[in-house]
């Protein structure tokens, strides 16, 4: 029968096609980055930061590869906002990088979600003997060390040195209050024709400093909101008034902030100062050739300091990594190696390793020295840092900015926006 003949001759072909298909599909899958290539252990290491930090980190990683010929490190970095989203997606897909940089706000979520490895699993690969014990403890969740702080950082009023001087306005001094800061911004605007500062209303970090200056906190010990709609409405009324007066940046400028210094109003040359973290402010140097100065954040009206030393930028290891030992060894190198410390300087803040901190202090130059001196000037004067923020906080940072957008574009009143935020925050923090 002709029919059956063709059928039999057809079968092997179909099988071959199906087989070929399987091979193709198999080839497409299994793109696991953390495997071995040519006998080498390949690690993926990601972080956020500016180009300066990227260059220095790459240099340190190159040195690590030279000292550990069996290990290859694939690096990638981006701005904070983009990094946060990408990492969350990778983590959810079980594809988190072997070694990742984490923010204080992420630890709780990542640790409780089972993304991070407990460092107790690799006790020999990392030496934490030289670390500041209090700082090290900030990387613990439920008694387990899920992340290692790389450094400490603090908020600062960073300003364009030349322009502020030229304006003739009295420069910021230690212990200045928020109302003195506001007066300075008004004066700067009057003298220079540009807003004195980036509108701090959009920044949850700045709000936290203001709140702590009044003896309050973002979160209570039970991980609930530590402030009320009244507090937030007062803060936003304060900043909104300054914006209307032209003392701080316009809504059009403020809305462009995306976690990179390049897109801040100061970085774009529209204002004289900005509130930012100290170490990342090095990014301004490439944009403001005449240099920037770091000043302390304003205090509460009774002199209570609001800013604090925050463990900045943790390192964590993926719970799914196939090379836990090598991953921890990379972290050990970044934090404990004297040469690496010299290369990295203060790009992530002042190192957590106390011996290295003292060793590199005299050798620090340029902006690293600026950060070191700035932190030294505040040492012993600030209140203890708050505990790690609860899981929902990471999303609330964006919500905060967005709700304030509604205020600065004059869509709704500070009061309404504050109430919206409280509602959203309560939903976000719901267990």
């Amino acid at each position: 029968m002709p029919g059956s003949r063709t059928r039999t001759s057809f079968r092997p072909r179909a099988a071959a096609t199906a087989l070929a298909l399987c091979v193709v599909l198999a080839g497409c899958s299994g793109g696991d980055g953390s495997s071995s290539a040519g006998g080498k252990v390949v690690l993926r290491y990601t972080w956020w930061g500016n180009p300066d930090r990227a260059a220095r980190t790459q240099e340190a990683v190159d040195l690590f590869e030279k000292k550990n010929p069996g290990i290859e490190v694939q690096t990638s970095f981006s701005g904070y906002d983009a990094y946060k989203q990408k990492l969350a997606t990778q983590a959810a897909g079980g594809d988190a990088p072997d070694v990742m940089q984490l923010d204080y706000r992420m630890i709780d979520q990542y640790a409780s979600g089972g993304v991070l490895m407990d460092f107790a699993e690799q006790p020999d690969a990392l030496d934490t003997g030289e670390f500041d014990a209090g700082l090290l403890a900030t990387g613990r969740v439920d008694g387990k060390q899920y992340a290692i702080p790389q450094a400490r950082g603090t908020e600062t009023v960073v300003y364009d040195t030349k322009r502020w001087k030229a304006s003739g306005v009295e420069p910021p001094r230690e212990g200045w209050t928020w109302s003195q800061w506001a007066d300075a911004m008004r004066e700067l605007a009057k003298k220079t024709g540009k807003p004195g500062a980036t509108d701090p209303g959009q920044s949850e970090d700045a709000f936290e400093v203001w709140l702590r200056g009044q003896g309050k906190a973002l979160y209570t010990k039970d991980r609930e909101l530590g402030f009320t709609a009244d507090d937030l409405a007062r803060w936003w009324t304060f900043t909104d008034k300054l914006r209307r007066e032209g003392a701080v940046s316009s809504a059009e400028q403020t809305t462009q902030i995306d976690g990179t210094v390049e897109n801040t109003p100061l970085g774009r040359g529209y204002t004289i100062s900005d509130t930012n973290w100290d170490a990342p402010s090095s990014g301004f140097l490439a944009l403001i050739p005449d240099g920037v100065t770091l000043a302390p954040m304003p205090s509460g009206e009774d002199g209570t300091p609001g800013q604090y030393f925050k463990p900045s930028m943790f390192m964590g290891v993926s719970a799914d990594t196939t090379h836990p030992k090598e991953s921890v060894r990379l972290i050990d190198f970044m934090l404990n190696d004297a040469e690496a410390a010299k290369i990295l300087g203060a790009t992530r803040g002042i190192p957590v390793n106390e011996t290295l901190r003292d060793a590199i202090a005299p050798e620090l130059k340029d902006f690293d020295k600026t950060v070191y001196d700035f932190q030294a000037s505040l040492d012993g004067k600030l209140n203890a840092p708050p505990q790690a923020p609860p899981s929902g906080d990471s999303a609330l940072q964006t919500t905060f900015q967005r709700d304030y957008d509604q205020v600065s574009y004059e869509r709704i009143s500070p009061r309404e926006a504050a109430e919206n935020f409280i509602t959203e925050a309560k939903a976000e923090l719901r267990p």
Partner: protein
Amino acid sequence: MTTTQTKAAVRPQADVPKKPVRRRREGAAWVFLSPWVLGACVLTLLPMAVSLYLSFTDYDLFNAPNWVGLRNYTQMFTEDPRYWRSVGATLTYVVIAVPLQLGLALAVALALKTMRRGRAFYRSAFYAPSLLGASMSIALVWRAIFNDGGTVDNLFGTGGWVNKPGWALFAVALLTVWQFGAPMVIFLAGLQQIPGELYEAAEVDGASRWRQFLSITVPMLSPVIFFNLVLQTIQAFQVFTPAFAVSAGKGGPADSTLFYTLYLYDRGFVASHMGYASAMAWVLLIAIGAVTAVLFRTSRSWVFYASEGDR
């Protein structure tokens, strides 16, 4: 029942020699289709099923999902003002961008139709933005053009469009309108299908150009217009890349370009509420289905199929 039975009874006799051949062809068809079928199952149907399940949970990317029933849906409709803002922004965008894009596409197609020389060149030139437009890089360039200190600001002194709540949406819509190439090519093909005699006859009767356009071109082209309308409307509802890039990923300023898909992304990937985002995705699917159904319903009264006359 009886007819099917008789058919079944007759069939074996007539089909005996044919049947294996047909099955063989079917087999071959399945083999050739298999990459697509596999892809559709693994990459489309399975994720869709999972997302339907997740839409009834509180999945947050990090912890195992818990069943919450309809909570995501009730929260969306009753407790989330930003959800409704995103619906508003999306509808505004669809209503602005789709007619403008189709109008421009039709106008250019009409101009090209009468063009004798260089038509191929212009057709390609006008189509080029459609090839480039979906890319992130073009959207970023767009943002730079419409930012403060950008080209548009320098030329017209309007300030940065992308940072003004009333204007940002237009910047995104313009990017879509600019990519009118795909509907234009379809319009052009449709225009060439219209028999020339109709115009000649109209000319003899003394009909003006405008009259000819309204009474010949539009009715004869209406199936193509309908096709483009449905396609572009569906696409407009799903717009993501241009809005994401032009608003720097935030749907700003002041939520003015917070399109549905952008808010969905924000809920899922920024706030880690995958359950909620999945519920939003399903509502979008149903909404697009409903809008398309309405378009089909109205089409009966304005779409003219030439073949209908023969029936």
